[in-house]
């Protein structure tokens, strides 16, 4: 059995899943930060 496809799919799904989640979160962060005032972002 050629094992490489399984391995590549594993890595693709892992990295892809994390990337998609992160990207969507940062996009929401950006759009939301534009509507929220400075004092509602105490970490800045």
């Amino acid at each position, binding site marked *: 059995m050629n094992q490489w496809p399984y391995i590549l799919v*594993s890595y693709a799904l892992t990295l892809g899943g994390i990337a998609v989640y992160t990207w969507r979160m940062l996009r929401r962060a950006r759009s939301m*930060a534009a509507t929220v005032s400075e004092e509602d972002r105490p970490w800045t």
Partner: protein
Amino acid sequence: MTSPDTPTPSAAGASASGGAVRRPTGTTFTRWLGAAALVGMAWLVLFGLVLSPDDALQKKGVRILYIHVPSAWLAYLAFIVTGVSSAAYLYKRTRSLIWDRIAGASAEVGVLFMGIALVTGSLWGRISWGTYWTWDSRLTTTAFLFITYIGYLAVRGLGGSHHQRARRSAVLALLAVLEVPLVHFSVRWWRPLHQQESVAEGKLDDLMLFSLFVGIVSFTLLYVWLVLHRQRVLSMADAVDDKGLDGALAARRAEQEVSS
């Protein structure tokens, strides 16, 4: 997720005029954290896909373990964090919405990593055992945990005031803590003879163990990075709700001018 009501321009504050905010949820700390996580992940991918030698027992399957083990570990860590911060919210002295947001952020990240762990785990199983799934107690518990926290996230989205949401989901998270050991032990009794898929079983050399260690560390850093950002996004979403309330209140009070 539906987008919240568009807040009034007055609520938007100073940053709105400049358009996009350069670092919406980032700080210097998270920047370093993210960089460290990225370096670790890069090493992990490089080692896992290219450098790693095949394992004597698991052959190439060991390559999946470099990402499977850290994600599974992370998912469990995330749910522990959810449970602890839920308890912290319910405990009167430490009651704060920040615990609720951390619990929510952590559960969301946990579901992501648990999904990854399940998929990579079954792919690994296909290589090593020749089957995608076995009714092993660890696997089964993980699957139940996955579904339970999907339900938890659904309940978080039910609406209500911030504190209503927080209390409801915190109680639910604690009930999940009650559920997990029961599911685990019942499955274990049910199928006592299962294959131990322990990492220690294979003969990993030092570099392989080191890489696994790097994986766990960098995934943990990534987790902290994700939860910090997610929690800040949730905090902004709550703030938008509150600010939206100011605008809505003004509009609501204006109704009387129209009617009289």
